[in-house]
């Protein structure tokens, strides 16, 4: 991982529907997870659901986060559906 980028991971239904396990994005200053969601949703198609009706859960560096959570180069961001274990 370059220090100029951050990693975005997808799980479960999102991983399948986006056909993407992970991708690298440039880490611009003052970036939040919400910015990343908006940018990815603008790709259209299945990506639109990242800002759709269904809730998307967010983690930053493997801890639960919010759309307002700031992210920086080197961070691991994850988007996934509400969890259903147990």
């Amino acid at each position, binding site marked *: 991982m370059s220090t100029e980028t951050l990693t975005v991971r997808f*799980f*479960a239904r999102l991983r399948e529907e986006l056909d993407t396990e992970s991708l690298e994005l440039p880490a611009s200053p003052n970036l939040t997870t919400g910015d990343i969601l908006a940018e990815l949703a603008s790709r259209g198609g299945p990506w639109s659901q990242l800002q759709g009706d269904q809730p998307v859960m967010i*983690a930053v560096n493997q801890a*639960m986060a919010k759309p307002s959570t700031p992210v920086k180069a080197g961070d691991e961001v994850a988007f996934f*559906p509400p969890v*259903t*274990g*147990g």
Partner: protein
Amino acid sequence: MITVQTDDFDPAAEYQALRDSGAGTGAIATFTGLVRDSGDLQGVTGLYLEHYPGMTEQVIQGLIDQASQRWDVRKARVIHRVGRLDLCDQIVFVGVCSAHRGDSFAACEFIMDALKTSAPFWKKEITGDTEHWVEQKASDRDRSQAWD
């Protein structure tokens, strides 16, 4: 101790380990979840469980830490399986030992309820040739929030 594994687990061995936690232990509460035949769809024949390695263990450790602050928890054990599971298979084990029974019951149920809504596991139900991701149940969110 927390383990996420594809293999089955042995609740008897886990119980014994909890029991060996010393003479101050007066109460052991355990919970085991099994694959049922009536999920979102009728005729479920199996499950596929995915998780977020690393984050899963951190989240569950956080739940055990929270439980240990609220109740007397002498030892807590969580095992969660991932991968392909069949009907009647064991999915999850939570065991807690305490001095008194109220603490062991409360901590065990809290960890289990909170795990359902905060640990990154996802369940796909398999029904014959079709499969679909399970939606989170409002009842699970309610049960977890009831502990706040």
